[in-house]
């Protein structure tokens, strides 16, 4: 089977979302088992749009749950998130998303 870089696209909507507070945020390194994240403010009617590029196939549902929980827990809205993944586990993914957000003081 031909190896490919998978593009996954999601959209989430938290209850009573808060506007994403940063114009542009970059966090992380695409090391082995790790990932990087760009988060940007974007007028999406309160939604959060996420694009993931990952070499791993078949984990779309896991990404949906990790990202969905992140959006619901943090109640961010009007944000665009882009992720370059290199085989990060769901736990690492979840951690990096929260670390990225905590970069905003």
């Amino acid at each position, binding site marked *: 089977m*031909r*190896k*490919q*870089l998978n593009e996954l696209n999601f959209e989430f909507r938290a209850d009573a979302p808060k506007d994403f507070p940063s114009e*542009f945020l*970059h966090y992380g*390194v*695409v*090391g*082995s088992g*790790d990932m*990087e994240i*760009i988060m940007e403010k974007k007028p999406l009617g309160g939604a959060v749009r996420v694009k993931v*590029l*990952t*070499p791993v196939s078949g984990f779309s549902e896991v990404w949906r749950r990790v990202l969905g929980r992140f959006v619901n827990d943090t109640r961010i809205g009007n944000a665009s998130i*882009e992720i*370059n*993944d*290199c*085989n990060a586990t769901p736990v690492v993914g979840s951690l990096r998303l929260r670390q990225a957000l905590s970069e905003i003081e």
Partner: protein
Amino acid sequence: MSGKWNALQALSFLECNARQRAVGLVDEGSFTELAGPRDRLSSPHLPVLGEAIQFDDGVVTAVGLIGKRPVFVASQEGRFIGGAVGEVGGAKMVNIVRLARQAFDTMSAVKDGLEDARRPAVVISFDTGGVRLHEANAGLLAHAELIDQFQDCKGKVPVIALIGGRVGCFGGMGFVAAAADVLIMSQNGRIGLTGPEVIEEEMGKEEFDASDRALVYRTTGGKHRYIMGDCNVLVADAVAAFRNAVIDALAVPCADIDSRRRIGSLEKVEGQLKLVDLCVRLAPKDSRDVWRYAGNEHPEAVADMSLARFLSSVKRLTDAQGGGTP
């Protein structure tokens, strides 16, 4: 913000990522990233091969200040595909050097006889195994172009190489770093051409045991390179230590910086040939044999010495002994 930059200074250079190094090397608040993640200049080749990409293609390029001097920085991310140089990251490195030279030309045109303290400089933090095999031709071209750029910078813009990352600096990038004016390393830094694993793979474990960390470090590591004269300055593993060494290196008058190089003139080539001759005569079985020849009576103690003790007591290979240059 101020606390952040200060905190960065105390961090281990080895453990910092490429961006943290770049930010910490220039004056506080002066870091301006060029072609950064926001521009999303990632590799066009990796997705075709199903490999992960990074928004900056593994190289942070920026301009900042050290004092009055514009400093053009390139910093390689060793954790992204081992810091391997591809088309985009390579082009970013080449162009940051080109920008520095253009800045020099522009500034010189405005004011004849640009004073040293305002002269632009290039600082490159290497952390790489060399060319990225997925896009090897473009990556190799970047190596050649970088050395070209370094030569064009001669007498205009000082080029300072830093090695203190986890990967070290191997493959073609070993050549590139050696072609810089000044090479600053930490004990954790390693430089070489063929990496330890590749030597073992090609020549067997009897020739070089890549799992023997002590052997690897005393053959390619900062202390050995310092004794041999391959590296000019050996510093502690901290961002501040590298930054201070850069500041010191830039304080050397530009006219004198050429004497610190390893290659680039007939005298340097002759020096290197003398070293080859010495190597044949000495036929060392281990780097310790060379350390002893250089005048270190207890070479077995060198590897475990603290940096301060090492710097105060070590004997470096001299020109008279047939050593290299700096």
